């Protein structure tokens, strides 16, 4: 029975896009009753993602031509280890957020909130958009998926309709739209040059000439604006910090990764030949800049959610270090693609950790009735589970063992030192220490014994437990890292081993 379900050709990949869309449509139709759909929908989504991953583990990477149409006309989906692991990470975070939000957006007895109505359709469309980005195998479908993601993400930020979050949403929208257009312009250039949009066809045809390089640069710049990589990070903190808590979790954990994912796909899968040492060193420099500046800014924030949002800016920097570090596989390492795997591991480990952190922070803010750091003093006694979740997530973000963050950092560091690029190693280590500085600034408050007990709003233990479970996943990823590692290696691009250019 089971082997049949995982055979090549069973469209788990398609299901992972169709199911959330269907749930979203049903949620619109059901209106206030949508919340009954949420848990079954989310769990089914998780099952599909796991099935897709199992399929890849069993049979390797494969392409699925939707409806049987082949490129250049049809739409192809590419399910490889990388895509499957992002599907699973998305499903894990989405399940956590769904469970967390189920009661948050419950319509109150007196009036039905617009946020309560809009959240669930947006949430599931976002999920579908994420999966479509991870699976997309041609540039234009990726554009559509990316826009789907942008629009739902912006709408989620604006969900509670306060003036400052509206402004943050508009700023985010402007950045994101400019980014999308830049991406689209690059797509047009590539199509003009090669007459193809399919990633595989492009890869076969691509040569390092001026048009290709220009297209790559324009697309990358656009995607970087969406990823909020330093110095294009200005929109992220207000948007991520201003959004409702579940939306913050989704945005910081997953949405920014989608555009990063495309940058990685673009350079490693499509245009490795067009990359030069200068471009990859530039990527690394931006990443290091993000780590340092993001952390320093996080250190200066007085609002809890802003600390976490700036931490996202910093953590995204690590992802860009994999560009200069690939291709440095020296003989003693048992890992052929240490830097590439490390970067991807970081993206995967960051997702549940950051989601857990935002959820825990949301609970603390609810309990205090105040988003600043100062009133958190002594909250360890009132919300022990949420604080513990925050602490575990912090361990992963600092890259301390045992956690997925550590495994990622270890791989990146090994790659940096093995290739003699010690300056990136120093950036990584400094980033870890800075992360400790801004996170322990928060953790300290949990343990302070306040002079008088502050009044706290009660918070359900179940919601705290969800944050703890997500944080636990990011820790577990550091101990049970063998399977994710093997999964990532399936269908990995050749450039992940040999390096760019």
């Amino acid at each position, binding site marked *: 029975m089971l082997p049949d379900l995982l055979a090549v050709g069973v469209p788990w990949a398609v299901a992972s896009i169709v199911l959330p869309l269907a749930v979203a449509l049903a949620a619109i139709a059901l209106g206030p009753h949508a919340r009954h759909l949420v848990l079954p929908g989310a769990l089914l989504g998780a099952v599909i993602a796991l099935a897709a991953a199992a399929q890849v583990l069993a049979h390797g990477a494969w392409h699925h031509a939707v409806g049987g149409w082949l490129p*250049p*006309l049809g739409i192809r989906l590419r399910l490889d280890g990388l895509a499957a692991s992002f599907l699973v990470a998305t499903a894990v975070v989405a399940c956590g957020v769904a469970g967390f939000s189920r009661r948050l957006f419950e319509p109150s007895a007196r009036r039905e909130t617009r946020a309560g109505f809009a959240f669930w359709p947006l949430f599931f469309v976002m999920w579908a958009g994420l999966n479509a980005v991870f699976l997309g195998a041609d540039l*234009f479908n990726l*554009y*559509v998926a990316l*826009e789907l993601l*942008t*629009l739902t993400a*912006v*709408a989620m930020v*604006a969900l509670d*309709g*306060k*003036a*400052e979050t*509206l*402004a943050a*949403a*508009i*700023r985010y*929208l*402007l950045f994101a*739209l*400019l980014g*999308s*257009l830049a991406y*689209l*312009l690059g797509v*047009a250039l590539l*199509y*003009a040059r090669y*007459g193809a*949009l399919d990633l595989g066809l492009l890869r076969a045809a691509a040569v390092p000439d001026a048009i290709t390089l220009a297209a790559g640069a324009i697309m990358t710049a656009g995607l970087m604006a969406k990823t909020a990589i330093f110095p294009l990070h200005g929109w992220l903190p207000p948007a991520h910090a201003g959004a409702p808590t579940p939306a913050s979790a989704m945005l910081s954990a997953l949405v920014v990764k989608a555009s990063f994912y495309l940058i990685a796909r673009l350079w490693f899968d499509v245009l490795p030949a067009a990359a030069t040492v200068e471009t990859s060193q530039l990527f690394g420099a931006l990443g290091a800049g993000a780590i340092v500046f993001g952390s320093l800014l996080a250190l200066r924030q007085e609002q809890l959610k802003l600390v976490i949002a700036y931490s996202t800016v910093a953590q995204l920097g690590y992802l860009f270090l994999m560009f200069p570090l690939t291709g440095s596989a020296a003989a003693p390492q048992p890992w052929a693609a240490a830097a590439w795997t490390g970067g991807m591991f970081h993206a995967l480990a960051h997702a549940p950790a950051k989601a857990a952190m935002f959820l825990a922070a949301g609970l603390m803010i609810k309990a205090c009735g105040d988003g600043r750091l100062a009133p958190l003093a002594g909250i360890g006694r009132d919300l022990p589970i949420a604080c513990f979740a925050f602490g575990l997530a912090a361990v992963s973000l600092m890259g301390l063992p045992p956690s997925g963050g550590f495994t990622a950092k270890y791989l990146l560091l090994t790659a940096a030192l093995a290739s003699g690029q010690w300056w990136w190693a120093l950036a990584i280590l400094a980033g870890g220490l800075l992360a400790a500085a801004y996170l322990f600034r928060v953790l300290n408050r949990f343990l302070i014994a306040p002079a008088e007990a502050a009044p706290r709003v009660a918070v359900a233990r179940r919601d705290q437990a969800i944050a703890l479970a997500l944080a636990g996943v990011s820790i577990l990823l550091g101990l049970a890292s063998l399977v994710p590692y093997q999964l990532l290696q399936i269908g990995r691009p050749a450039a992940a081993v040999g390096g760019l250019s």
Partner: protein
Amino acid sequence: MSPILYAATGAVLVGIGVFGLLARTHLLRRILAFNVIGSGIFLAFGGLGSRGPGSGVDPVPQAIVITGIVVALAATALAVTLVTRLFEETGAVTLPGEHPAEGPDAS
């Protein structure tokens, strides 16, 4: 008509749009500027459809442009909604921290 003309016109439109997006602070103008950029790109993309005389029309760019227009429409609708809401909440038509420029925006 050669694709070069479409491409050149498209490039001009993109240039105008980018200028508008960066130089103007009134949010409606920025949204319009975004649409101008989009039109420029669609125009250039659409121009790619004709691959020289006699070889017929490549349908892919046309399909893509239509999809792109729909996406841009959705984005514009969302943006306008947000701006309207911001105006209702605060009475501002610019992002906080940015002042309406003198001249055309002042009206």
